[in-house]
């Protein structure tokens, strides 16, 4: 029974995740692609004084520090890109591997008290 609950919940969660990702392109299909983020940033930078430009560049150069999304990419443009396709493929593989592991690596304890 417990295994059934666990499996059901795991699958429900995975469906929810997968569903959410698959909804993205549909939900955003009527969005117009925005200007690429880097181009906008570059345009902004050209208006700055050298000192300010240096300050801004240093502040945003930290690894993994994601600058606020002043010009976000849209779901439709993202998923049509090569990066979007690779991302979806890798996410699918990773989620599938985790689900496979849940099913195959688990050794449920069998006991009269469970």
């Amino acid at each position, binding site marked *: 029974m417990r295994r059934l609950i666990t499996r059901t919940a795991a699958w429900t969660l995975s469906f929810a995740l997968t569903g959410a990702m698959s909804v993205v392109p549909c939900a*955003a299909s009527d969005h117009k692609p925005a200007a690429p983020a880097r181009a906008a940033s570059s345009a902004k930078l050209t208006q700055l004084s050298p000192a300010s430009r240096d300050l801004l560049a240093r502040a945003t150069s930290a690894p993994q520090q994601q600058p606020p999304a002043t010009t976000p990419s849209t779901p439709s443009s993202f998923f049509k890109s090569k990066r979007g396709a690779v991302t979806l493929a890798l996410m699918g593989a990773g989620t599938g591997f985790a689900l496979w*592991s849940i099913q195959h*690596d688990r050794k449920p304890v069998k006991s009269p008290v469970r």
Partner: protein
Amino acid sequence: MKGIFRTAAALLLAVSCAAPVLAQALVGTIDGTIKDEQGAVLPGVTVTLTGKTGNRTAVTDAAGQYRFPALEPGLYDVSAELSGFTKAAQTSIQISPGRELNIDLTMKVQSLAESITVTGQAPVVDVKSSATENTISQSLLYSAPITRTAINVINYAPGVNNSSAYGAGAGSGNALLIDGVDTRDPEGGTAWTFYNYNMVEEYQFQGLGAPAEYGGYTGAVVNTITKSGGNRFSGLFDFFGTNDSLGSNNVDPAIAAQNPSLADPAKTTKYADITTQFGGPLKQDKLFFFASAQRFLLETDPSGPVTKRHEVSPRLNGKITWQMNANNQFTGHLQFDSYNITGRAGSVTTTDEQTVKEDAPEYVWLTQYRHIFNSNTFAEVKYTGWWGFYDLNPVQNVPEHLEVTTGQTYGSSGYYYYADRTRNQVNANITHYADKFGRHELKFGGEFERSTVRNRYGYAGGAYILDYYGVPYYGYSYSYDISGVNKRQSVFAQDAWHATNRLTINAGVRGDMIQGAGKTGGNIYSSNNWAPRVGAAFDLAGDNRTVIKGSYGRYYEGAQAVIFERGLPGVSDYVGFDVNPDGSFGDVQSVTPFVPYKLTSNIDHPAVDEETIGFERALTGTMRLSLTGIWRDNKNFVNSVPVGQAFTPVTANTDVGPQTLYKKQENSSDYLIQNVEGFQYIDINGNVIGTANPFRSYKAFMAVLNKRYTDRWQAQVSYVFAKTKGNVDNSSSAQTESRQFETPNLALVNAEGPGSNTPTHEFKVLGSYQIPVIETSVSGYFVSTSGLPYGHIQQFGSSVVGPGPSSSRRVYIEPRGAYHLPTLTQLDLRLEKNFNTGANRFGIYADLANLFNSGTVTNVVTRATSVTLRDGTTHPLPFGTPSGVQSPRQIRIGARWSF
């Protein structure tokens, strides 16, 4: 004045009507004043805040002030626009939970030369907080060679290790929060649920001078903030692994000769940690998702005969953020973890047939709704919790046999153990800013907790059998099935009163009403406690760069079933019986009946009183130095005491000379759980032979230097000088549960000494540097701590100290902490070659844990014993023999792609 009281009364009413309500609000605030170049305030300026989920705007008031409350942790930009002036902006402002950052901007009269003025770094010193906190940022987490076991990350904080935080009890005194979800075991307060290391946005270590909204701990608060989706798509794909060919052996032959069980140390044969993560918008500015899948695998060849230990943890996470509009936000987060182990061994002599399987799945959930009434008021309600169990089952469900002539065991692990847990909490809080007599940040809230604990234990196959020269002759049976419930209702009220532009008074009070009960029946434990908090922070130069601060507060421990569960029913009698040579059970020879402990009413819940004094200075725009003095005194020790039992002083011959001990006069099981302060131990004539006076104090000086990531490097350097002293050690649950006070031999004899989990000197460096041209990052973690203290224990027979379990007959024969382990030093290194193309960041990296393969002794035998190995040889292990060394050098390699 009336306005303040009216507002406060209305807020209190709102909170009480909102019903069950604690609530650490995991949000920060950005506010500030906009001025022109002459210093005049500018009303009517449009201020725009840009974060990963979109923009928010505010207009400065007549005093030129603006405020953005209730900000999720992360990076923000602030810009100010007014016709005729050049746009002013500040970028990359890092918001952490509970921080209020003052971002003042100066606007210039517009010129053609420049259309935007970018101000420098955000403040590195919080001049309004009287608390002392340290964070490990995402950029440092990403680059550093940090151990990926989530609970071990606590080791990187100053003054904290995974054995003790600021002198508190090992593993049990810390509030471990993931996005506000209390993830601790409700039985003893230790870590229970774990998560994907790559999910973490930021670690925040609090606890020193924390305001009233924080409670349920006597050590530290570890706030773990996980990532979430935003307008920008982000992803991380990471593989990290190793095997036995990349490991080393660091056991010195001389040490192995002293303790042959160390000669065959555990080896990592396979390690593979795979993470795929993806987040972004479902609908721009409105709906965001974050998803993560991980599979963690660790296989080892343990010490001794066991051939393989297999540990696997597949985890799935899903998080949704719904920004309904600028004032309403909903967040939902669910984690599933299917943790599983096979080949779990009990000791170095365990064989494969004696291992257990561990099955420990769990769900963790969070739902949260936040409403911003206006720039002065916002409220948050959340329902959080987790469900899980932890089963240990023998691979062979047959009795374990002990061959009494050799000490060897065979058959099975000897036991099964099942632990079931749930934790449910409803939290709520409301924050209001008021501007009367200075500025006030008022916060009210509370928490409603119901947690359940169920423990089941028994002997595998129903018995534990003794053999004599291979023939079974006697057996025991014993089991328990205990269920308990923690109930807690907490409320708090606090005010950060900015009395002047430079002085902030932080005051508050917190009430924790804690009850404990069994599965049926009423409460057997009840404790109502009120904790005052007061602190002050003074901006020394009025420039947001230097602050002196101090605080006083009382902090009560969380609700823990371990305090009262010995008073619950469900334990069987302990039965001894004959066993026939063919293994069948014979006549019952002895029955030791189970007698539940009694509890007094009105127990004062364990707590710690704390005073801190601190100085912080921004050395540069990105570097902060903080100096903190800490004084802590633990209070309200709860333990079991021997009611009506008499003890007779005797002179015992110990390994180091004669020692006065106390012999228990009868085999009584009559114990009472109470605050042990003042309990008197008596002799058979009723004369007092000693009085319990439990205490533990902690004093420390802490210096921390933080450098944010700029100019290609970042670092956190810390030094802590600390002393923990008392007659109750800071080992696990010592303040709440150990049976130390059931006998004067443990309560009164050589009990006083230093805390065995607090190093006197601790030096830590965590940092990274990005080498230009070759774009390779070098990151390191260096730690050096003075050796931990330990004591000399000897076990006496019941003929000397009277009847009782062996744990009550193990006595310090020299003052506790009279000896010290050697100084421990370790360097971990990471090298990562980066390949960046556009927004894509690729990396290939290698971690070198324990680079110099140091083999310092980390544990020794404190009570003389011996070990009989599987080859049949028996080796004496006298006091002081090494019993553990550092983990050897292990190289791990990884590759990742993030954007």
